[in-house]
């Protein structure tokens, strides 16, 4: 069986990026799934430059490059893995190398005793019947070309089922690592999480890549169902090297009484697009969705979120913060959709940006679509430089300029980090933030 199948594409400008079809492991349902997605991509194609949803991101570097699917896992230098591993902090750790699960690099401990872990390619018979609904269904809320390409092309991926009433305890780290390649590669991380009723878990995904002179495209898709009264914390950490392009489509459905908490942390990659779609599908579902972006150089991070209030009595909170230095660009576009049945919705959206250079640019757009009449929706957005008076205050007490800037930027990020529920995860993210900021201020002073 061929690893790459070309699909006819009528649009000439897309010919070079025809969908990659995921490897055929002899699993009929999976092959059908890939094929259907490839056909969908042929209809949808890449987002056009005039597509309102993609107006603030320049996709031409991605479109101009011919990316090849990673065929087999590359070499992982142990010291590079050590930098990214959270196993020593007490996380369960599942490592994917170039899109393929690597048991040798993973630390699963007793995880399999607590939850069900299944690679899509291994699901056959009854398992396939049970698992297949968790593939593609949530993602249909995000019908864009990248999501279709992921569905057509993923080589491996996980279904993670937290059984009813199970509290996993230790957080789960899923590391998606792309190694060095001699040509541009694309990987398609794919994850489905099903938290059954009353389940509790923290899942942290890291996207990372080894430094390379060849571009990497990471096109990830994540689907989550948060069952009744469940508590799910989903963290995404983007820390790929500066040659990486990254797109994540993540869709979550939240049921009655469930509490969903997300954090999208961005410090890596050159170009990042995160689409997060959260549907509060039943009454009394809660969602708190947060973002923290630390960018410099010519990085561009585009966060698109949708909070879809489908039913009544659901509170949602959203806080996205960005720290932009150098020539970095940021986009926040947060949509709050309140459907006719979603009376008593209480939704608060906040976007705040600190610009650390004159050349950094932020574009922040709230978007409220309200079809119910008894709702409370607020949104606020601020963008500004570091406060000179605060800076002078700290320095007047002997604190150096670099340290003062670190303190103030860290404080700015602090309320996002404080929202992280899992203590071990919060500690890790606090340290990561500190490191990123320190590096950024040192760079700024050096230049």
């Amino acid at each position, binding site marked *: 069986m061929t690893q790459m199948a070309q699909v006819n594409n009528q649009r000439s400008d897309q010919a070079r990026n025809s969908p990659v079809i995921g490897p055929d492991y002899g699993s009929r349902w999976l092959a059908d799934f890939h094929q259907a997605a490839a056909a969908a991509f042929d209809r949808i194609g890449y987002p056009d430059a005039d597509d309102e949803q993609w107006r603030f991101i320049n996709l031409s570097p991605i479109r101009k490059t011919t990316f090849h699917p990673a065929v087999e896992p590359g070499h992982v230098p142990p010291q590079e893995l050590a930098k990214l591993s959270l196993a020593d902090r007490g996380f369960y750790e599942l490592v994917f190398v170039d899109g393929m699960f690597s048991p040798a690099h993973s630390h699963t401990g007793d995880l399999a005793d607590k939850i069900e872990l299944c690679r899509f390619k291994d699901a056959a018979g009854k398992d396939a019947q049970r698992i297949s609904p968790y593939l593609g269904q949530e993602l249909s809320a995000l019908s864009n070309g990248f999501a279709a390409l992921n569905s057509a092309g993923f080589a491996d991926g996980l279904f993670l089922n937290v059984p009813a009433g199970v509290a996993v305890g230790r957080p789960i780290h899923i590391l998606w690592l792309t190694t060095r390649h001699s040509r541009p590669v694309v990987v398609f991380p794919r994850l489905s999480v099903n938290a059954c009723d009353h389940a509790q878990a923290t899942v942290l995904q890291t996207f990372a890549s080894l430094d390379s002179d060849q571009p990497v495209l990471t096109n990830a898709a994540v689907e989550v169902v948060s069952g009744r009264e469940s508590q799910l914390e989903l963290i995404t950490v983007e820390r790929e090297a500066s040659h990486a392009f990254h797109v994540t489509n993540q869709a979550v459905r939240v049921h009655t009484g469930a509490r969903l908490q997300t954090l999208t942390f961005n410090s890596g990659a050159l170009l990042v697009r995160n689409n997060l779609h959260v549907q509060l599908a039943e009454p009394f579902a809660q969602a708190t969705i947060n973002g923290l972006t630390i960018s410099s150089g010519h990085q561009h991070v585009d966060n698109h979120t949708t909070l879809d209030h489908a039913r009544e009595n659901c509170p949602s909170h959203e806080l996205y913060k960005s720290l932009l230095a150098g020539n970095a660009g940021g986009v926040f576009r947060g949509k709050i959709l309140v459907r006719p049945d979603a009376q008593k919705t209480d939704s608060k959206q906040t976007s705040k940006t600190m610009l650390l250079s004159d050349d950094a640019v932020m574009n922040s757009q709230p978007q409220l679509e309200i079809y119910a009449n008894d709702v409370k929706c607020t949104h606020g957005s601020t963008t500004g430089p570091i*406060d*000179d*008076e*605060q800076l*002078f*205050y*700290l*320095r*007047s*007490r*002997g*604190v*150096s*300029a670099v*340290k*003062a800037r670190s*303190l*103030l930027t*860290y*404080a*700015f990020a*602090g*309320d996002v980090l404080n929202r992280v529920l899992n203590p071990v995860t919060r500690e890790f993210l606090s340290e990561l933030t500190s490191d990123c900021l320190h590096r950024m201020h040192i760079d700024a002073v050096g230049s």
Partner: protein
Amino acid sequence: MALLEVKNLHATVQGREILKGIDLTINPGEVHAIMGPNGSGKSTLASVLAGRENYEVTNGSAIFNGKEILHMSPDERACEGLFLAFQYPVEIPGVSTSYFLKAAVNAIRKYRGEPELDAMDFLKLIKEKMKLLEMDQSFMNRSINEGFSGGEKKRNEIFQMTVLDPKLCILDETDSGLDIDALKIVSQGVNALRNSTRGILLVTHYQRLLNYIVPDFVHVLRDGKIIKSGDKSLALELEARGYGWLENAA
């Protein structure tokens, strides 16, 4: 040797000259008060000495401890032993007072070539000083000045000053916005810092503060210049007769 020797200091803000030739000498152990009507340049003088940006020094010098400080960054000046208590202390949400103050203490110690304090030693130091200013310990875990009343903010300034143990304390309108009880506590804190080596410069509009912190010298600033200097009786005379009396005299 004088602790601070300011000579012919001229400074502008946005092209407008505010200080028009200040001469001021403070010797170790002395308390000086700078008084003057609004807009006379009192706060500008305090800010220029502490190194606030957006002021441009166009002429003159300020020798502190034998070193010219006008070219130094604000943090270097602080490390040299200069402290400015702000007229309007700024709120800094998300930065705890204890973390910040420990960073400040250790930055200054490092500058002086002293070993940095560990958490235990630092805690011991601040507990002692908090008692002096009748401060609650919970205050150390709160963000700097966040949600503080005017009086609490000023007390926090004096507390930091006490912890950092500077050679020269500049207090910019510390009495403004204080009720009488807070004024007493703050004054008590400042008086406790008086010794034979430290210098104190009080910038104030009213004589009231000087009932509690009695100065050795009083200077009257008007239109960017010191137009009269004297002892503490000058402050009382100003209180009785107003600044108009001096303007007529000048």
